[in-house]
């Protein structure tokens, strides 16, 4: 757990006097403390960190400086995602970050630079920060720091929802998998996910159909669908497409609802939705 204390506008040496008092009165001495400082006010922070047995890390942001004091010897959670298939690493990292308190850090390593780059994009898209990224011998790594997702201003539409439209069904297993793998990746990045199954796409939602589809590297399709639904995704099956195929609500797997064209159009028209078609 990290405590963030804003000391913006307070000049040296008062900022370090404040920091000394804050660290002295922490409820949990094992807690990491991050001081947000005006540039130049970090003078004296090293002495404060040393006095209390903390390791100091100073980083500069756009309008402020961060002095991060971590109890010396404390370790950061680490995960190695070498060998995992896309989007597995993104999902793994997103799931771990979701459980971390704000300010906590996670080190991710992989033999694949591409995988680390993909994770970096996902971390930043979810509102958290990549504080360090590089290579160490054969391994590539990044250090992610959990942050609160900032609310956008009223003038900007936050595209924090993903609509995945699927019209291929189990006849195209690759597209069927992509639908729910992308949905899981989006969920792990903190996005709200809606899946709209239309045309042959509705066949995926008929009870028993997805259970016969298995990618060699991933769990069975019906299991994947179930995970996505339990993860909070809304899954609709197009009513008209379902009727064409003799599918009613009772034939659908749990968690999938029939919906009409208006719902689909409304979802497509919502500027907060990023739309992906499979």
């Amino acid at each position, binding site marked *: 757990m990290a*405590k*963030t*204390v*804003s*000391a*913006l*506008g*307070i000049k040296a040496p*008062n*900022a370090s*006097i*404040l920091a*000394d*008092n*804050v660290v*002295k*009165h*922490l*409820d949990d001495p094992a807690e990491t403390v991050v001081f947000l400082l*005006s540039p130049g006010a970090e003078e004296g922070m090293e002495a404060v960190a040393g006095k209390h047995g903390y390791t100091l890390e100073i980083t500069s942001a756009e*309008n402020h400086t961060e002095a991060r004091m971590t109890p010396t010897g404390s370790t950061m959670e680490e995960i190695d995602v070498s060998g995992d298939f896309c989007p597995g690493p993104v999902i793994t990292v997103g799931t771990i970050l979701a459980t971390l308190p704000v300010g906590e850090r996670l080190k991710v390593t992989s033999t694949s630079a591409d995988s680390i780059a993909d994770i970096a994009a996902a971390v930043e898209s979810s509102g958290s920060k990549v504080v360090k990224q590089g290579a160490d011998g054969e391994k590539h790594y990044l250090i992610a720091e959990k942050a*609160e997702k900032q609310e956008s201003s009223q003038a900007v539409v936050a595209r924090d929802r993903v609509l995945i439209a699927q019209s291929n069904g189990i006849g195209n297993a690759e597209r069927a998998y992509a639908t729910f793998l992308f949905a899981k990746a989006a969920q792990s990045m903190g996005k709200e996910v809606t899946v709209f199954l239309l045309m042959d796409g509705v066949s995926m939602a008929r009870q028993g159909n997805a259970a016969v589809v298995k990618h060699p590297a991933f769990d069975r399709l019906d299991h994947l669908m179930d995970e996505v639904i339990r993860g909070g995704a809304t899954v609709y099956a197009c009513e008209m497409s379902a009727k064409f195929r003799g599918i009613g609500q009772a034939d659908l797997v749990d968690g999938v609802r029939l919906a009409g064209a208006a719902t689909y159009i409304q979802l497509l028209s919502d500027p907060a939705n990023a739309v992906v078609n499979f």
Partner: protein
Amino acid sequence: MSYETTATELIELLGLKGSPVAVKLAKTADDVPAGYAKVEKSRHCQFVQDARLKGAAGYATADEHQCKGGAGVMGIGPLPEHLANGSTYHKLGNFKTAEGALETVAAMPKSTEKFYASVYAPLETAAFEPDVVVIVATPRQALRLTQASLHAHGGRVSSDYSGIQSICADAVVAVIQRGVPNMTLGCNGSRKNSGIAEDEVILGIPPAHLDGIVEALKIFKEKWG
């Protein structure tokens, strides 16, 4: 937890005029203590003064907060744009330049969380665990409180304020966020509208520090009279 004894001792040892004031920021309506009613519309600094001098207890949602700046920094409703960008303070003459005004409001302590209401009561009768205790004191009383807060661990005190948004940002938000006391000299609003006197200053103190402060004040009393 009851602070009746602590409050009584603080009042007696310091010779305070009125009560220390327990302030809590309630996340939801359910978080407001049972039996507490909404206060009449006014300002945060006035709610503190009413609890301090009249023994008033109650809570204020965004609707009851007439000073939207005070409510805004405490996370009870949005901070109005003209305050957030400093333009009001620039126009009022607090700052020579718009940049100076902006720098000041940007550095002002502001709650990063949203709250439903602020709750007030004299500390001795508070039926809730306060987030901060606000004490309006004379400079001599503030000196004793400062000495008492350093008594256990030593060091120095760093108080910071900017002459605007004092009892809300400096004495409540800063103290909750940092977990250490802060002293402020008030602002035009608190002095003019809420009757903070010429010879009074304001301190925000984390409740967890009160026992140590009282203990130190007793020692000072014994040694210094």
